[in-house]
C-alpha cells in the first residue's frame, strides 16, 4: 500500500509540469501557431521562480514570477512569428536556445543548495483520512491548479464562443480575418497564454518538484510536452492521460533505480525518451486520426491581405 501510494502520488506530481506546458501549447497550436520553444520558456520560468524564492519573496509571488517570465519569453517568439511572419520552426528553436542561455546565465549565482519546497495543502478532515488523504488531498496547490486548468481549457475551447473563434483561426485564418476577427491579436494572446503555462511548468520544477536549481534542469520535458500535444491528437483529455502516462514512466524509472534493478541507470533514464518515440509512431501511423483534430493552418504565417 505504501508503495502504491508513493507511485500514485509520484505519478501525479511528475505529470504536473507536463500538464501545464502541454495544455498551454495546445491552446497555442489550436490558434494555428507552433511554438517549439517550450523548453526555453520552461527554463526561464524555473530560473525566475527559483530566484524569487531565494530573494525572499513569498511562494505565490515566486510562482507568478516564473509564469510571467515564461510569458515574456513567449512574447519574443510572438513578435517574430506573428508580426515579422518568420518561419515558426526557426523562431521556436531560437527561443529554446535563448531561454536555456538566459536561464543558465541568471542561474550562475544560485548555488546548488535546495530550497524549501512548496508545501502540500492541508484540508481539514479530508487530508487526514487514511489512504484517501495521502492519495488525493495532500498535494501542493499547483497540482490542483493543473487539473483546474485542464477543466478550464477544455471548457474554453469547446464550450465558449471565444474558444470557437480561436479554433476557427487555427483552421482558417483567412476566413476568420474576412469575417472580421483580429487574427493576429488573438494569436498573440494564445502565444502569451502558452508562455504563461510553460513558465508555470518551469516554476513547478524548480520550487516544488526538485526544488533546486540545475542548469538545463528541464532535461527535455519541454520537448516531451510538445510530443504530448501530438500524442493527444490536439485533445485536452488525452493530454491529461498522456501526461499521467509519462509521469508514471518517470516514477517507475526512479523506483527501478532505487530498487537497484540490474540494468544500467542510463537505460532507465532513456525510457521516457524512448516511450515518446514509440507513442508518436503509434499515433502518427493513423493519419486520419491526426488529421481530424489537427489545426489546418498550424505553423503557417498569416498576413492579412489587402
Amino acid at each position, binding site marked *: 500500500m505504501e508503495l502504491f501510494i508513493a507511485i500514485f502520488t509520484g505519478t501525479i506530481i511528475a505529470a504536473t509540469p507536463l500538464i501545464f506546458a502541454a495544455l498551454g501549447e495546445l491552446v497555442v497550436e489550436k490558434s494555428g501557431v507552433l511554438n*517549439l520553444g517550450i523548453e*526555453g520558456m520552461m527554463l526561464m520560468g524555473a530560473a525566475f521562480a527559483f530566484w524569487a524564492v531565494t530573494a525572499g519573496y513569498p511562494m505565490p509571488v515566486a510562482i507568478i514570477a516564473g509564469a510571467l517570465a515564461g510569458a515574456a519569453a513567449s512574447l*519574443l517568439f510572438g*513578435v*517574430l512569428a506573428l*508580426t*515579422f*511572419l*518568420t*518561419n515558426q*520552426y*526557426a*523562431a521556436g*528553436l*531560437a*527561443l529554446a*536556445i*535563448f*531561454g*536555456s*542561455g*538566459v536561464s*543558465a*546565465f541568471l542561474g*550562475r549565482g544560485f548555488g546548488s543548495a535546495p530550497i524549501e519546497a512548496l508545501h502540500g495543502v492541508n484540508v481539514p478532515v479530508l487530508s487526514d483520512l487514511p489512504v484517501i488523504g495521502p492519495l488525493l488531498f495532500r498535494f501542493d496547490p499547483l497540482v490542483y491548479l493543473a487539473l483546474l486548468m485542464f477543466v478550464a481549457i477544455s471548457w474554453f475551447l469547446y464550450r465558449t464562443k471565444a474558444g470557437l473563434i480561436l479554433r476557427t483561426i487555427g483552421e482558417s485564418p483567412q476566413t476568420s480575418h474576412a*469575417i*472580421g*476577427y*483580429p487574427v493576429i491579436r488573438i494569436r498573440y494572446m494564445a502565444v502569451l497564454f502558452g508562455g504563461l503555462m510553460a513558465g508555470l511548468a518551469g516554476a513547478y520544477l524548480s520550487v516544488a518538484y526538485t526544488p533546486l536549481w540545475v*542548469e538545463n534542469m528541464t*532535461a*527535455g520535458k519541454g*520537448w516531451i510536452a*510538445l*510530443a504530448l500535444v*501530438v500524442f493527444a491528437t490536439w485533445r485536452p483529455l488525452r493530454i491529461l492521460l498522456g501526461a499521467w502516462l509519462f509521469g508514471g514512466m518517470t516514477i517507475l524509472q526512479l523506483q527501478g533505480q532505487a530498487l537497484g534493478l540490474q540494468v*544500467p541507470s*542510463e*537505460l532507465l*533514464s*532513456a525510457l521516457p*525518451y*524512448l516511450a*515518446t*518515440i514509440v507513442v*508518436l*509512431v503509434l499515433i*502518427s*501511423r493513423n*493519419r486520419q486520426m*491526426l488529421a481530424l483534430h489537427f489545426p489546418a493552418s498550424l505553423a503557417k504565417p498569416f*498576413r492579412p491581405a489587402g
Partner: protein
Amino acid sequence: MRVAAPVLASVLTLIVGSLFFASLGHEPLPTLYAFFVEPLSSINGLSEWLLKASPLILIACGLAIGFRANVWNIGAEGQFTMGAIAASGVGLFWPDPESVLLLPLMFLAGMAAGMAWAAIPAFLRARMNTNEILVTLMMTYIATLFLSYLVHGPWRDPAGFNYPQTALLPAAAMFQSFDPAYRLNPSIFITVVAVLLMWLFTDRSFLGYKMSVSGAAPLAARYAGFRESAAVWIGLLAGGAAAGVAGMAEAAGPLGQLSPQISPGYGFAAIIVAFIGRLNAFGIVLGGLLMSLLFLGGEGVQMTLALPSALTRIFQGILLFFLLAADFFIFYRIRVVRPAKNAHAPEAAH
C-alpha cells in the same frame, strides 16, 4: 539583399551585446574587444577559430540539405555523439593500433553511425508519418545517455583513476596537428570538401533541385512526381553523415578520448549556422566562422572577465532572432494602412 539580413543581424547583435555588457557593469567596448577581437589576435586564436568553425560548417552543410526540403533534423547533436562514439570505438579496439587504415576506418564508422542514428527518424517519418523534429531530438537525449553509459561503464579507462572517460586514442587514430603548438589539424579539409559537395548538390544537381522544390512548393513537387520520402531520406541522411563525420573529427582531433561531455553544442549551433548562411554552401562558411567566434569569445570572457559561457547561447539566440526579424524588412515592404472606420469590426460577422 539576401546577404543584408545576416550582416544587419550581426550588427544588431553586437549592439544588444554592448548594452547587455553595460548593464552588467562592464565597459562595452573593452568587453566586445575581449569577446570578438582578442580571440583572433594570436596564431593560436586563429587556429582555434578554424578548429571550432570546422564542425559547425560541416554539420550545417548536411543539415541545410534537409532544411531546403523542409526536413527538420534538429538532432545533429545526437548524430555527432554517435559518430564520435563509433569512431572512438574503432580507434580504441581495432586489433592493430598502428594501422594506417585506422583513420579511414574511423571516418567510415563515424559517418555510418551518424547516418544510422538519422535513419531511424527518416524511416519513421517516411513510413510512419512521424514528426522528425521530435524524434531527432529524443534520439539526441538517448545518444547522450548512451555515451554516459559507455564512459561510466564498459569503455571506462581502467587506468583513468575512475574518471568517466575512455583511454586516449592511439596516435594512428588521431589527426596530427599541422604544428604541434596548435590544435588545428587536417580534418578541416574534410569540411572544405563537404562545402564543395554541398554546393555541387544544391546548385548543380537535379536531385538537389528536386529537394529544393519539395521544400519551397510541396504540392508542385508532388505534381511533378518528386517523391517526398526520397527528400526525407536524403535530407536526414545528409545531416546524419555530416554530423557523424564531425563527431569523428572531434574525437580524433581536439578530444582524443570520450568523456560524458564531448560537444559544446555544435549540433544545435549548426542549425543557426545553416540559417545564417541562408542554407547556401558559401553562406554557411561565413555563418560558421561567425558562430565559432561566438564560442571562442564566450570561452574568452569566461576566463578573463569571469562572465559565464552561457553568454554564447544567449548571443546565439539573439543572433537568430535578429536574423529572422531582419528578413521581414527585406522580403516585405511596410505600408501604413489606416483601417477604414468599422470595416473590420467583428460585429460585421453577425
